[in-house]
């Protein structure tokens, strides 16, 4: 006779409530798992999906993701001239906060050379790639935009021609792809008042230096002209060339910094992502421990409630394994049912979660195994309590 299952059958409501409670806790554990992996996945998504062999950034800087990098736009032409470089393309990325779809959204803009394969979105969920130099964009589905929608960025309207799915920056914010000139305009475009104020200030400085009249009119446009910069140059190395040698040539010849994709990935993992990854990992471990402690407490309480029955069982001659099975089976049923329910909850809701959740099968199985094993070990407290219960307790002695 399976005493544990009979107990569950006769107290279905209480067990279901307990299972739901533990399941919610397990769901939080799995969410942490997903966030931990999602944090890394989001963090390196843009690096990996850009598929450049080399990232060329400002000398002495760890850009373009970990810190700002500004290099002259035309430097990509110099890079392209280095032996072993098959293609070089300008690349620009920055974050903006704009009202899109009726709500303020934090978005990362990626500017890429739309006529070069490098730097654009790897695949589209809908629509097409940008084919015009201006006023077209590709947006991630997280933004809620459809093909043909237009949004205002700065002084121009941009039309959505393509939609990506899962294109995010290291913070999980959706990406918008623009052509490099458009991205520069959105980044550097000042409003009219600011431009006017800057021109007045430039004229005042030139006058102070003794320029006036026709000289001032010739010099003013030069002084006020903005020289757009880019964040990085993406490089595709020729199949026959050695990536490290090409990188070395760029570092030495152009006095720029060159990172391979794996170095860029390492920079991201050890820089921007490191602290968050550590925090999420810590929370993950703490939640697993909390889960196990709560399961242990529940099993202990369930055991204490049954002390008189356990004493009776001992007095009427039940062997210890019957009592141990009663407790351990309930621990296993509680843990497995709660974990399954918790997983189902997360699997159904993960796409609506504000951050990317990556539920790897190995992580899920390993977490389930750790919680199950931990729960069983912890329920030994209940077993210990049961085995210490004297049969005489049945007689009230």
């Amino acid at each position, binding site marked *: 006779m399976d005493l544990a299952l009979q107990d569950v059958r006769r107290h279905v409501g209480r067990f279901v409530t307990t299972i739901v409670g533990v399941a919610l806790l397990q769901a939080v554990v799995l969410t942490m798992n997903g966030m931990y992996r999602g944090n890394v996945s989001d963090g390196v998504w843009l690096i990996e999906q850009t598929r450049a062999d080399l990232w060329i950034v400002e000398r002495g800087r760890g850009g373009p993701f970990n810190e700002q990098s500004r290099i002259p736009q035309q430097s990509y032409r110099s890079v392209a001239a280095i032996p072993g470089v098959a293609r070089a393309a300008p690349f620009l990325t920055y974050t903006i906060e704009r009202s899109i779809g009726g709500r303020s959204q934090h978005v990362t803009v990626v500017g890429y050379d739309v006529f070069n394969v490098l730097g654009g979105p790897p695949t589209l969920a809908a629509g097409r790639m940008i084919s015009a130099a201006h006023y077209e964009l590709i947006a991630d589905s997280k933004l809620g935009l459809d093909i043909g929608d237009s949004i205002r960025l700065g002084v121009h309207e941009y039309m959505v021609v393509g939609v990506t799915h899962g294109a995010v920056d290291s913070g999980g914010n959706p990406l918008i792809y623009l052509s490099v000139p458009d991205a520069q305009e959105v980044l550097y475009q000042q409003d009219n008042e600011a431009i006017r104020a800057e021109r007045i200030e430039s004229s005042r400085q030139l006058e102070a230096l003794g320029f006036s009249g026709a000289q001032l009119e010739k010099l003013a446009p030069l002084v006020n002209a903005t020289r757009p910069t880019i964040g990085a140059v993406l490089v595709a190395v020729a199949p026959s060339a050695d990536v490290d040698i090409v990188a070395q040539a760029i570092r030495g010849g152009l006095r720029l910094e060159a990172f391979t994709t794996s170095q860029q990935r390492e920079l991201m993992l050890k820089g921007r992502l490191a602290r968050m990854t550590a925090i999420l990992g810590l929370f993950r471990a703490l939640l697993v421990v909390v889960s196990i402690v709560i399961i242990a407490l529940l099993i202990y309480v369930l055991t204490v409630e049954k002390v008189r029955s356990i004493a009776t069982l001992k007095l009427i001659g039940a062997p210890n394994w019957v009592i141990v099975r009663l407790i351990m089976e309930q621990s296993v049923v509680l843990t497995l049912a709660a974990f399954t329910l918790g997983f189902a909850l997360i699997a159904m809701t993960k796409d609506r979660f504000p951050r990317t959740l990556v539920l790897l099968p190995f992580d899920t199985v390993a977490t389930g195994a750790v919680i199950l094993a931990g729960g069983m070990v912890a329920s030994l407290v209940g077993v210990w309590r049961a085995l210490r219960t004297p049969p*005489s307790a*049945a*007689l009230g002695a």
Partner: protein
Amino acid sequence: MNILRVDYLTKVFGQGDRSVTALDAVSFSLAPGDLMGLLGPSGSGKTTLLLTLSLVLEPTSGVIVFGDRELYRDGWASGLDARRFRRESIGFVFQGHNLIPFLTARENVALALRLDGASRQAARRRAAELLDYLEVGHRAGALPAELSGGEQQRVAIARALANEPKLVLADEPTASLDTERGLKVIELLKRAARDHGSAVITVTHDERMIAGFDTVWRMKDGRLSLDGDSASAPFTFAH
């Protein structure tokens, strides 16, 4: 042959000045069909005697012989498995009925049989027979909480008789019942003892139940005496 013989059974708790003699040279014997009433005030040693006979408490000295097997003489007999012995040879009826609350009446009775190795079908059949015998067959599917006190006690008696034990130990089985239901329970125990050839020791402090027992023994300060006799009376319950 006697079912149980106890000679000069003594149980002392603690040592030195703080020692308490719970059983003081208790001696008696029981034959099949005997229904022994054991009366005495709280702390007189009644429960200690039951726990000692259940092999839960080890005596300090004395002899316990069960059938032709000596269970205790200056120590438990070698190879004695107390739980197995209880499972096979002793039935228990408790003051608070002590039915497993999440098992039905039928399952409570069948549990004792299943623990002793009976198949599921055999256990169900035997449980149904016993519940019918104790006139609670119609309540077989009810949980203990759904049964009246009297019904619960009948189910407890059915469980105690499930493995056809030679000895039934009943601890205050009538404590939570009125006189009429209490006497009915004593009557059921007497009938069960007679029909199954068991001996029954019933501990009670309820004087109203005296009429139901074959023999009434009293305990005071650990000493056992036949009702009306203040002296310890070894071997007086002879057959």
